[in-house]
């Protein structure tokens, strides 16, 4: 199975990759929502979890979350929002829209790993 990271920051994608590979999942990277949705169209059956940045150029992470949760093929995939936005309203909005978890940057690798496992039901 694969875990997808959608983030415009290559560094954040690398940090997430290093945490995910330790868990024996394959990593799929997308630098924006458009690229992510294109990949999901072909690979949605293999994606176990999506780690989604909130602030991205073009379609933002929240808009992408809404699309995922409205799509019959994608809505079952757990989504963890990963963002530097620490506002409580955003967290509530994301959870109400269907996000499984919400991880605030900065985070430690341990924190990230713990949240990923929780999303995968292995926590």
């Amino acid at each position, binding site marked *: 199975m694969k875990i997808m990271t959608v983030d415009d920051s290559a*560094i*954040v994608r690398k*940090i997430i990759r290093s945490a995910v590979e330790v868990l024996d999942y394959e990593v799929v990277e997308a630098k924006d929502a458009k690229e992510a949705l294109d990949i999901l169209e072909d690979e949605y059956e293999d994606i176990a979890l999506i780690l989604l940045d909130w*602030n991205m*150029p073009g379609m933002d992470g929240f808009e992408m979350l809404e699309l995922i949760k409205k799509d019959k093929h994608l809505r079952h995939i757990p989504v963890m929002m990963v963002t530097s936005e620490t506002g409580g309203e955003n967290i509530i909005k994301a959870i109400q829209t269907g996000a499984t978890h919400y991880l605030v*940057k*900065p985070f430690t*690798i341990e924190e990230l790993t713990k949240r990923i496992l929780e999303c995968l039901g292995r926590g």
Partner: protein
Amino acid sequence: MDMVSVDMKKLNGLLNRAVIDVITTMTGFDVEDDPDCSQFAEFESVETIIGVMAVFGSIDAVVALATDINSSKLIVAYMTGIMPTDLTDEDVHDGMAELVNMLVGRVKADLVREGLDLSITSPFSISGTNIEMVFKDRENRICRRFIAGDVEMFLSVAKI
């Protein structure tokens, strides 16, 4: 409301905590702060990289986090677990921009909770030697120095 009407001491404190928290969490460094920015002048003569972000709304300001190239490689290496020698220029630029993104996101959330209305731009980075940032408003400016072992960083916030 503009930057003048925000309690500067409070803003200073929020920024200070945000920088220490972000750098410590992402790198594991033990960071100390120093309100004395007088070393910044000599710092400008070395090759420097600056992560930058602008804030608009109740406060219109530019936030910049500067460090020398070798320190930035060390910071990004600790963030990612990648050896400094294996980092690309793009990694280092992206890492510095992301650090600013994290610290501005943290301060923005604190200020929004206080009732301020703020928007933030995407972060970007600048590198070079003898980079001088000149702002018209010299009064409403915050500069702080942060030290973690041999790593030295300067945070600059200026009203625009």
